[in-house]
């Protein structure tokens, strides 16, 4: 990603110098910090038994506890503890033998108690790491991101701002609160500062969040859908002149709602900060808001007047002391690491790197593995999902996995392998299944799509083709094998593609004395 910066660009009003990203990275080195919030997929909330289901009618999944009514008390969800420990173990953390909840005190209408029950100086998991790999000019490079802590907290309610000209928060006449989401378990994963990424900072950040997402998905602890808010990323970055040995002032960027946005937000922030520094301005320590449409960030609440959270140990909850036996039981439950799994599948399927990357980026790895597990031949499974199914999905603007099941596709691929369907016929069967005409067998029956492999039926078509093109037939008899293509084509057309082309060729040549 490069950019040409125009001094006439309003962003740079009054600037004496303008740097693009590449130029910025020649003078400054970035230090990253990433905070990821994960919404757990437990049945009930963190501290009460209300349902966590998404999309309920407003304020129908609340109780005295999550509404913060006077007298209400929290009780910890055991499954949430388990999920958090699993996350910590998957990130190579130490699980604290003693951890506590703490109150983070601040006022905001979406917070029923005006404090968040969270963890402060005694989090449940500490000191882990995650290795990521990115593409650099010198080839693939590994980065180890160190994890400072993994801790538990609770989500807030949702506010709707009504009135005002834009419907956004400034200028709203009033706000409406729905507390269904209040109290849903959140896990916060905080990295240590990440130095040494240089110009690859945006990619490293994206790779980190991606790998983290895949690990969380493999653990089954969250839906991890960034667009839906079950995975949230705040990106922190600061710049310092290369070799200065110092750290710059950092900014925090929120509202980063996709993997691509992680990369774009850091790219934009690095450019912004570099340009400020170049023009003799200091970087303000603040929270910024990422803007999807422009890739820029705008200032939010200034962190320099940050709230004093007045953390203290939560008196309504008792400490969490997971014993070694329980931790080992959970460790045994850890699934294969996504990166290990990817390498293993690539070797098993003998897939070249480029195609593997394509599969991973298209998020088709799981469904391809499923399809293969159901008996489909690996290459065909990959080709169909990456090819035809993805093409159709693109057209219809839906996810490939929503169009057809791995079971149905595996069945169709099996029919191709046994010769009962040609590729062309198979495409029609896929179309039929997608259109809801039934199972592959139903579609084949209804549309009469079986390959014609009955020799006598084929001979009828072959003789008709020969009769229609006597000169071509003569050439073939004379030894011109390639000429058979025209006759084979004619037979295929006549049978509506239902003929097995290889069989037609065999019979034709035999018939014309060239077998």
């Amino acid at each position, binding site marked *: 990603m490069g950019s040409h910066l125009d001094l006439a660009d309003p962003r740079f009003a009054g600037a004496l110098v303008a740097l693009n990203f590449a130029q910025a990275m020649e003078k400054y080195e970035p230090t990253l910090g990433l905070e990821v919030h994960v919404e757990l997929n437990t049945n009930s909330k963190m501290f009460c038994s209300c349902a966590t289901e998404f999309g309920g009618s407003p304020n129908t999944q609340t109780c*005295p506890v999550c509404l913060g009514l006077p007298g209400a*008390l929290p*009780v910890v969800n055991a499954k949430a503890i388990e999920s958090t420990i699993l996350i910590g173990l998957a990130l190579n953390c130490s699980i604290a033998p003693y951890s506590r909840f703490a109150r983070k005190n601040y*006022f905001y209408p979406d917070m029923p*108690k005006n404090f968040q029950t969270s963890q402060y100086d005694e989090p449940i998991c500490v000191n882990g790491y995650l290795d990521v790999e990115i593409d650099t000019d010198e080839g693939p490079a590994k980065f180890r991101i160190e994890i400072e802590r993994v801790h538990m907290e609770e989500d807030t309610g949702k506010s709707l701002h009504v009135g005002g000209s834009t419907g956004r928060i400034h200028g709203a006449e009033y706000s409406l609160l729905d507390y269904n989401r209040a109290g849903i378990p959140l896990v916060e994963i905080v990295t240590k500062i990440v130095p040494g990424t240089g110009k690859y900072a945006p990619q490293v950040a994206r790779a980190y969040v991606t790998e983290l997402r895949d690990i969380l998905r493999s653990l089954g602890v969250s839906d991890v859908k960034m667009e839906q808010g079950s995975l949230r990323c705040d990106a922190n970055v600061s710049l310092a002149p290369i070799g200065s040995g110092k750290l710059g002032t950092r900014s925090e960027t929120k509202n980063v709602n996709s993997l691509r946005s992680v990369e774009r937000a850091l790219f934009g922030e690095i450019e912004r900060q570099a340009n400020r520094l170049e023009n003799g301005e200091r970087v303000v320590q603040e929270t910024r808001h990422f803007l999807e449409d422009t890739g820029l960030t705008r200032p939010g609440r200034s962190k320099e007047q940050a709230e004093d959270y007045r953390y203290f140990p939560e*008196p309504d909850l008792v400490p969490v002391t997971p014993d070694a036996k329980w931790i080992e039981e959970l460790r045994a439950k850890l699934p294969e690491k996504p990166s290990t799994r990817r390498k293993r599948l690539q070797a098993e399927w003998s897939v070249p790197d480029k195609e593997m990357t394509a599969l991973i980026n298209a998020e088709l790895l799981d469904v391809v593995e499923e399809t293969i597990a159901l008996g489909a031949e690996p290459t065909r499974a990959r080709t169909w999902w990456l090819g035809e199914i993805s093409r159709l999905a693109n057209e219809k603007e839906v996810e490939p996995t929503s169009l057809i099941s791995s079971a149905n596709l595996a069945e169709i691929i099996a029919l191709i392998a046994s010769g009962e369907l040609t590729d062309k016929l198979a495409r029609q069967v896929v179309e039929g299944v997608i259109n809801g005409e039934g199972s592959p067998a139903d579609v084949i029956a209804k549309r009469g799509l079986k390959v014609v492999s009955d020799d006598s039926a084929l001979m009828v078509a072959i003789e008709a083709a020969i009769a229609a093109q006597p000169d071509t037939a003569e050439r073939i008899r004379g030894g011109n094998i390639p000429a058979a293509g025209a006759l084979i084509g004619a037979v295929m057309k006549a049978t509506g593609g239902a003929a097995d082309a290889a069989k037609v060729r065999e019979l034709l040549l035999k018939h014309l004395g060239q077998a």
Partner: protein
Amino acid sequence: MSSIRLSAAQMGDALAKGEITSVELTNQHFDRIAEVDSAVHAFLHLDKEGALAQAKSVDAKRAAGEKLGPIAGVPLALKDVLTQKDIPTTCGSKMLEGWRPPYDSGVVTKLKEAGVVILGKTNMDEFAMGSSTENSAYGPTHNPWDLTRIPGGSGGGSSAALAAYEAPLAIGTDTGGSIRQPAAVTGTVGVKPTYGGVSRYGLVAFSSSLDQAGPCARTVLDTALLHEAIAGHDSRDSTSINSPVPQVVAAAKRLDVKGMKIGVVKEISGAGFQAGVQTRFEESLQLLVEAGAEIVEVSCPNFDYALAAYYLIAPSEASSNLARFDSMRYGIRVGDDGNRGAEEVMNLTRQVGFGREVKRRIILGTYALSSGYYDAYYGSAQKVRTLIKRDFEAAFTKADVLVSPTAPTTAFKIGEKSDDPLAMYLNDIATIPVNMAGIGGMSLPCGLAPEDGLPVGFQIMSPVMQDDLMYRVGGTLEAALNSKWGHTLISQIPDLQVR
């Protein structure tokens, strides 16, 4: 013939024998309330409909031959800090004027299961902060012994209701002495169970690690009967003890302290205590010796820091617990004229909704927790707490229970200390250490101070989860005192001068 001067145990007995119905008993109490409460002001809300419905239901069950508990059908006054579904719960504050909770507290659930008839909600210092009930937003309660004096606090309404025979049973809550000190100055009995012994679910929190609901009555046995009805594990309270309810009724009936060691805590008796209070306390010690106990002196040097630590820990927790009162979801809302933002409305609501003492403690607590001050204040106070626990642990190796006068003075005049916060805080000097360590504490009447003829309370402190020891000593002392006097103390209360 009115039965309101019977003990709860006697009422339960009469109900069981069919000598009276619960409806009759309940109505007698409402009549008494109508007669005297304009002077006493113990109650903030009366639930005639609900009470009579419960009374009727208990009578029906009894008539059908069901076996009911010892206090089924007996009336009770409930401190207004505990939620009762659809019944106004104000916590003595303007902030919750008119609020009706959509749920019952654990204590209320247990009371209903026991068949107890809840007459209404009693007055209290706002959000349980105070020692005189003068901090109520709805006006003070008056001590039935002398209407110009305070009934103690924060649970003055409950204790006054007992002393005025408006109810034979009451529920209070105790954070630094709010059950025991009112009991002392009204000549009634009050117990703070071991922390975690009674559910805090639905107890509007003041200081979460210190708060505890507890039984109040006119006799030790009545208190024990109520204690067994409300104690027990509640899975909705993570700090609730998961152990069998202590056998306090049996202990209260035991009337035997032979061989027990009674520890007098040097630091919370003697100097600093009103002469008459100290006199009655020492006389009670003598009775216990005559009953076969041994008095030992123990020293708990860190108790000298207990008050200071309490007035850091409690306000800190309170500042956080009371943050929820922001006018957004319940309670009053002030200043929402369509031109003000949420934060401004919060600020104005909290300015108007909270009284002086509550605001003082919120600010103090905010300060003690704030960045840069945490270690010196809140952090240090938590360490003092450890030292107090250790003092108790050491003392309990030398004595089975510890004792002291409950409060340094008898009931003072309304208005006498309300302008001097520190003077007011000193009322809790003997009761606070108990909450800090989470152990059990009881106050029972041990006489009238000779200089003013006002009730004096005797405090008994028992180790964690050994509440029965308090009741054993308390029951024995009560019997010995009653025997010495020839009557109970409360029976000596002057008739109330009413309109």
